[in-house]
């Protein structure tokens, strides 16, 4: 079984400041890693994913994340945030089971960007 920990439930940040949202995972098998964003009253949108290869992954809207296997982390970063980045961010993992790659999510981090 897999589990995901997002230690920060809320992260307040000023516009144009950098931000890091932390994600740690636990799994006895190799996993794939994802970050999703959820705007109010909307479904989840994929920001980026790590399946294999380079551990630095670039996604949409200027976000990037780095996979660190030794620390079992997949932190999300953005060098300069915008008001429109205010949303809920979810880290997720999946492990291919032979039938499906169901996602296991963390509890989410609310990013609040202010002027």
């Amino acid at each position, binding site marked *: 079984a897999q589990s*995901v920990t997002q230690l920060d439930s809320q992260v307040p940040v000023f516009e144009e400041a950098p931000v890091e949202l932390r994600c740690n995972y636990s799994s006895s098998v190799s996993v*794939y890693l994802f970050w*999703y964003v959820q705007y109010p*009253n*909307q*479904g*989840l*949108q*994929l920001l980026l*994913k790590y*399946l294999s290869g380079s551990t630095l992954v670039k996604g949409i809207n200027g976000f990037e994340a780095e996979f660190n296997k030794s620390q079992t982390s997949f932190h999300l970063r953005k060098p300069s945030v915008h008001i429109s980045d205010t949303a809920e961010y*979810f880290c*997720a993992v*999946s492990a*291919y*089971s032979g*039938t*499906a*790659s*169901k*996602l*296991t*999510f*963390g*509890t*989410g981090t609310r990013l609040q960007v202010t002027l």
Partner: protein
Amino acid sequence: GAGVSQSPRYKVAKRGQDVALRCDPISGHVSLFWYQQALGQGPEFLTYFQNEAQLDKSGLPSDRFFAERPEGSVSTLKIQRTQQEDSAVYLCASSLYRQGATYEQYFGPGTRLTVT
């Protein structure tokens, strides 16, 4: 193109009523997932379909929850005798499928169920 759609977007049910939630996946997507998202929590897996076959229902919380996808396209999640703890947003996601591969899941907007 059209994304994943879900209906209704909002549903209020009295405790004990049965409800049916519909999901229209992206055309051609073989895989279909249902997740339950309680307030302030991340989504939790309920069940998975590959075409019309329900291959994993390990996340269904009780036998009051039932899902089907009879023609391998539209799916319905049914909750019988709703309880207050069933109040949540129910998310549907679809993806491509190829054995051994992992594809992005595309999520619908969800159905917010409130049981009073």
